[in-house]
C-alpha cells in the first residue's frame, strides 16, 4: 500500500511542478520574468548600479539639463579603438538660440572605470550594509550622465534606479494590502452568506423564543441602550432641522420623516429585530466604493491628509490608499469562489464531522482559492504601479527627497510643453513604467495559463 503510493508519487507530477513547466513554455511570460528580475535587481542594489547618489548635484559648475554623456569607443581624431571614455563638458550660452548648451572639452580623455570606490558618496544596501562600491564611474571633473540630468543637474539614471525602489515596491505592497482586505472581507461575505445577524434587540420576538441565559440578557440590554442613543439622536436631528427650516412645508416634511425614523427604531427595538446578512453589508460597501470614479476617490482621499507630510509617511499613505481602493473587485471574486466552494462535498463533509469554521476556512477553502489568488495578484500589481505613478504625476503622491518614476515624469512636464522638446531624455522614466507594467502583464498571463488545466500544452 505504502509502496504503491510512493511509486505513484514518483510518476505523477506535483501541482507546483506542472505549473512551473507550463510557465516555462510561455515565451512572453519568461521574457517578462527576466525583465522584472533585472528591474528588481537594479532597484534592490540601486547604490551599486547608480553612478551618483540620487540627490547629488553641484552648483558651480552647474549641469542643469545636461544631455546624456557621449561615450566614445574610438578616438575621434585617429579613429583608434580604445576602452570607453568620455570628455568633460562645459556649459556655454549659445547666442543664436539663447539657450544653454554643453560643449565637450576634448583636451583630456576620462576613461570609464568599472567597480569604482566612491568614498565621498557612500550608500547603504537595505539600510543595513554600507558600501561605496559602484559599477561605473568616471574621474572628476568629467561626469557620466547615462540618461542626462534634471533641472538641478542630478543624474537621471541614478534617480531612475532609486525611483524604481519606490515604484516597484508600492505595486507589491498595495497589492498585498488590497489582497488581505479582499480575502478577509470576500471570505467572510461568501462563507457567512445567509446567516443573518441581529443588530437590534426586538424584545417581543426574543421573549417568545425559548431558553435565555444571562449573556443573552446582557446583549439585549446593551443593544437596547445603543438604539436608545440612536432614537435620541433622531429626535435631536429632527428638532435641529425644523429649527433651520425656512418655510412651513419643509418643517412638516422634516417632522414626518423624523417620526417615521423614530417609528422604525421603536419597531426594531420592541418588535422584530433588524437582521442583516454580513454578505449584504460587505457587498453594498464594495458597490458604494466602486460607484465613485477611482481617480476622484483617490484624489479626495489624499486630500484628507495635509499636502506637506513627512516623505516616509506619504509613502505609506500612498500604499494604504491604493490598497483601500483596490480590494472591492478581489472581494467580489473571492466571495463567488467561496460561495461555490462551501457547497463542495469535501467542505460539507468536514463541517459534518464537526470541524470549526476557522478550520474549514483555513484547511479546506483558502487552499482551493490559492491558484486564483496568485494569478489575480500578479495581474493586479501593474494597476497599482500605474496608480502610484499617476498620483505622483499629479503631485499628490511621493514627495522629495524620495523619488518615483511618476514623480520624475511630473518634473519632466512641469516646465510646460516646450520644456521637453530640447531635452527628450527627461521622458525616459516613462519607459521604465511601461516596461514594468508590460512585464507584470506578461507574467500574469503566463501564470494564468499555467494554472489553467484547459490550456495545458
Amino acid at each position, binding site marked *: 500500500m505504502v509502496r504503491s503510493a510512493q511509486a505513484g508519487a514518483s510518476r505523477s507530477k506535483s501541482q507546483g511542478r506542472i505549473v512551473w513547466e507550463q510557465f516555462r513554455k510561455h515565451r512572453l511570460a519568461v521574457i517578462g520574468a527576466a525583465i522584472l528580475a533585472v528591474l528588481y535587481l537594479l532597484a534592490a542594489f540601486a547604490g551599486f548600479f547608480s553612478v551618483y547618489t540620487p540627490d547629488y548635484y553641484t552648483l558651480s559648475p552647474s549641469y542643469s539639463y545636461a544631455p546624456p554623456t557621449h561615450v566614445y569607443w574610438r578616438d575621434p581624431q585617429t579613429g583608434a579603438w580604445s576602452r570607453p571614455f568620455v570628455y568633460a563638458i562645459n556649459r556655454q550660452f549659445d547666442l543664436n538660440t539663447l539657450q544653454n548648451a554643453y560643449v565637450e572639452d576634448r583636451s583630456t580623455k576620462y576613461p570609464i572605470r568599472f567597480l569604482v570606490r566612491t568614498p565621498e558618496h557612500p550608500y547603504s544596501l537595505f539600510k543595513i550594509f554600507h558600501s561605496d562600491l559602484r559599477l561605473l564611474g568616471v574621474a572628476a571633473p568629467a561626469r557620466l550622465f547615462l540618461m542626462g540630468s534634471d533641472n538641478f543637474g542630478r543624474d537621471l539614471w541614478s534617480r531612475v534606479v532609486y525611483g524604481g525602489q519606490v515604484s516597484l515596491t508600492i505595486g507589491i505592497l498595495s497589492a498585498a494590502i488590497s489582497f488581505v482586505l479582499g480575502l478577509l472581507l470576500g471570505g467572510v461575505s461568501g462563507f457567512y452568506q445567509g446567516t443573518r445577524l441581529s443588530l437590534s434587540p426586538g424584545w417581543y420576538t426574543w421573549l417568545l423564543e425559548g431558553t435565555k441565559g444571562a449573556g443573552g440578557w446582557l446583549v439585549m440590554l446593551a443593544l437596547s441602550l445603543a438604539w436608545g442613543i440612536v432614537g435620541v439622536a433622531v429626535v435631536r436631528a429632527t428638532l435641529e432641522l425644523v429649527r433651520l427650516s425656512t418655510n412651513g412645508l419643509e418643517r412638516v416634511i422634516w417632522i414626518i420623516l423624523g417620526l417615521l425614523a423614530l417609528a422604525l427604531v421603536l419597531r426594531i427595538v420592541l418588535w422584530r429585530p433588524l437582521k442583516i446578512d454580513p454578505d449584504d453589508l460587505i457587498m*453594498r460597501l464594495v*458597490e458604494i466604493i466602486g*460607484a465613485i*470614479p*477611482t481617480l*476622484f476617490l483617490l*484624489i479626495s482621499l489624499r486630500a484628507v491628509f495635509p499636502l506637506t507630510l513627512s516623505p516616509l509617511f506619504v509613502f505609506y499613505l500612498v500604499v494604504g490608499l491604493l490598497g483601500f481602493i483596490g480590494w472591492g473587485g478581489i472581494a467580489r471574486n473571492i466571495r463567488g469562489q467561496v460561495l461555490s466552494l462551501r457547497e463542495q462535498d469535501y467542505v460539507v463533509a468536514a463541517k459534518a464531522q464537526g470541524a470549526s469554521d476557522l478550520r474549514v476556512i483555513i484547511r479546506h477553502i483558502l487552499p482551493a482559492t490559492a491558484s486564483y489568488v496568485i494569478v489575480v495578484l500578479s495581474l493586479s500589481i501593474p494597476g497599482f504601479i500605474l496608480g502610484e*505613478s499617476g498620483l505622483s504625476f499629479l503631485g499628490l503622491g511621493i514627495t522629495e527627497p524620495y523619488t518615483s518614476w511618476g514623480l520624475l515624469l511630473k518634473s519632466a512636464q512641469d516646465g510646460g510643453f516646450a520644456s521637453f522638446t530640447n531635452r527628450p531624455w527627461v521622458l525616459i522614466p516613462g519607459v521604465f513604467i*511601461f516596461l514594468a507594467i508590460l512585464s507584470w502583464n506578461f507574467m500574469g498571463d503566463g501564470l494564468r495559463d499555467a494554472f489553467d488545466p484547459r490550456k495545458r500544452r
Partner: protein
Amino acid sequence: MTAYLLRRIIQIIPTFIGATLLAFIIIQLSPGDFLTQLELDPKFTPETIARFRQQFGLSEPIWLQYLIWMKNLITGNLGYSFAYQAPVLEIIWPRILNSLVLVGLATVFLYLVAIPAGVFGATRQYTLGDQVVSFFSYIGLAVPSFFFALIIIFVLLQLKFHFQVLPFPIGGMTSSNYDSLTAWGKVGNVLWHAVLPAFVIVTADIAGLARVMRGQMLEVLSQDFVRTARSKGLADRKVIYKHAFRNAIIPFIATIGGLLPGLIGGAGLVEVVMNWPGITPLLLDAVGQKDIYVIVGFLTLTTGLLMIGNVLGDLLLAVVDPRIRYN
C-alpha cells in the same frame, strides 16, 4: 421591462446615498476648511470669519451639514463654492460636459477599433496579423495614459519644428479664433481638439477589450452551432458575422458600464497633461483650496452619471440579448 427599469432605479438610490455619504465623510475628515486659510490673512478679523462660518453652515455638526446638503440636493442645489463665489452647479456643470465630450468620443473610438481588432485576431488565430494585433494590445495595455500623452505632444512639437505642420492642436479645447466660428465650426473645432486626448485615454481600454473580443469570438467559433453552420455550406463571412459575431458581442455590451469609472479617471490624467478644461484640473484646484462643496458636487454628479450609465448598459443588454428577459 418597465418594472425592471423601475426596480433598477430604486436599487440605485441606496448606493447613491451611501456614495454621497462616503464622499461627505471623506471631505469632512480633512483638517480645516476653506475659511482656515483666511485666518492667516490680516484683512479678515476673527469675527468676520466666524460670521462667514455661520453663514455657510460650517459651524454646524457634520451630520447636520450632510442632511442640509442632501435636502438642497433634492431641490437641485449643490451648494455654494467658496473660491468662485458662485453656485457649485454653475461652475462644475460646464466642466463635466467638457469631460463627457472626451469620454463620449473615447467610447466611440473604443467600439470602432476594439471590436474589429478582436474579430480580426480571432478569425486569423496564430497568423502574423493576429500576432501583430496581440503585440499592439500588450503595448497599449502597458503605456500609462499620461506618458503616452507626453510622447504625443513631443512628436507633435517635433513635427512642427522640422516640417512646420501641426496635424492636431497640442492642447486646450478651442482655438484662439473660436468665438468667430459658426456653430458647426465650433463643434468641429472642439472635436478636432478632442481627437488626440480621446485616443490617448482609450488606448489601454481598446487593447484590453480587443483581447476580450478575441477570446469571446474564439469561444463562440468553437461551438457546435458554428460547426453546423459551416458544415451546411454557409459562406465563411456569413458564419462569422451572422452567427458568431452576434453572439460574441453580447458580453461586450455589458462591460461598458464597468469601464466608465476607469475611462473618466483615465481622462483626468490626460486632461491635466493636455490642458483640457475638464473635471480633474478643477477638482485638483478645489482639493487644494478645500472648496468642499465643489469636491462633493463633482463626486456626486459623476457617481450619479456613472450609475445612470450602468442602468443604460443593462437596458441595452436586455434589448440586444433575447435570452435576457427581466421579469
